[in-house]
């Protein structure tokens, strides 16, 4: 590959990095189209599981805060946020709820 082409590739890459850094600095948040579609399709829902009993957690903001406090969130169809294994609380969030939570200031 000629050095000119390499320079063009480097410039395009740097431009993208610069753009990304600027977005981070100015705290601009873009919703990827795929996630935006998912958000439109379903209503945010959150459930709490304690020892196998699952209950609806209607306060999504509170759910976001509690989920954020957990050690990890993993996608298992829905997103499950928990700390450790076994006899522990679990927060089940659908994609819409998870996307909503990620847009909150406490998740940044």
């Amino acid at each position, binding site marked *: 590959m000629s050095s000119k082409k390499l*320079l063009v590739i480097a410039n395009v890459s*740097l431009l993208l990095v610069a753009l990304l850094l600027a977005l981070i*600095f100015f705290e601009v948040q873009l919703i990827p189209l795929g996630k935006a579609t998912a958000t439109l399709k379903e209503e945010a829902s959150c459930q709490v599981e*304690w020892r196998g009993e699952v*209950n*609806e957690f209607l*306060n999504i903001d509170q759910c976001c805060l509690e989920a954020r406090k957990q*050690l990890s969130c993993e996608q298992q169809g829905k997103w499950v946020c928990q700390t450790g294994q076994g*006899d522990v*609380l679990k927060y089940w969030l659908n994609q819409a709820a998870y996307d909503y939570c990620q847009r909150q200031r406490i998740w940044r």
Partner: protein
Amino acid sequence: MRKIMSLKKGDGNKKKKNKLGDIKRGDIQEKFFLFLVIVVLIFGSLNVVKAKGWLIPESPDSFVQGKTVNLTKMPLDKKIAQMVIVHGSTWNEEAWKRLGVGGIHLFALADAKTYKTIIEKYQEDVTIPLLVSADFEGCLNPFSNFHQSIAVSEINNPEEALSKGKEDGKFMRDLGFTLNFAPVVDLNDEIWKCRSFPGDEKEVSELAEAYILGLQQAGIISTAKHYPGRTLAGKDPHKQLVTAIINKQDIYPYQYLIGDGVVDSVMVSHLITNGVINSEGYPSVVSEKVIGDLKEGFKGLIISDEIQMAGLRNFYSTLDEMYLAVFKSGNDIILDFDEDPLEIYRMVKVVEAAVQRGEISEEKIDSSVRKILTAKGFVVE
């Protein structure tokens, strides 16, 4: 023949022009490359500076002499910062210390060693130690990756509650914590089904009292939450803030614990309330009436529930209005888990300006800071 010659000449000129064009384009590309490198370096550095909180100015701590704080010499912005508990993230440590926040709240971490390391780093080289808090209730357990704890819903008598309080308190103290946002004294937990003590309001109060005494014996500050009750009930999913009717039973645990002079702090919720506690259409946490009435009988710390939740934020048209409201209403400690140190710094400056123009009295700020510093073991002059 001439035609062929002229064509050849033309080709030669074109080639020369193309070559010149390539060289020029190459030059532009090189200049653009340098420009982009500089832009990336500038934005990269700005992001680091922002995250580290280096844009927040430092001020001398000459108002602290050993274990004595001279409140009159303490700068106003430092007093306001003392009233804030933030999320103690590892990446913001320097910024929070520079800002002089009153405390950090820790979420779940992998193991005890990580907790100890983080807390030690936060407490290193600070003139006023930070309050270090967690929500360690039982089933709600940030330590559950390495430490199990019985749910309060399984506690049957005050002896068990006292024992749990001592164990939880000792565990927290060993890690370096000073403040537990527990016990919950809401009467019915309809969501988690494990966060409330069992029984009626009297039994809940007795169990909570025993638990608090256990925490205190281990040197941990306790918090009865979430005033004035009914926060663990289901709510209308279409409303971010809900109105709850508070009855005598809901408020009984607070009257009991405050009356006995046992509880160190009370956390106030975002619920709009009617009934025996009327927040007059405002979320309780920003209701001057609710907090003012509570303060008449309670001299301990009043702590706001986390303020970045959309329900409370959307109650106001701007963040500044909300910041002023939570300080104005009389909370001593504000929980704000915004991860951006510059935003917390901005909040401090917004409140400072409000104090300077007389919208919030400095006596109110002083009174809160006095309570906080006393809880930290300082003598306040």
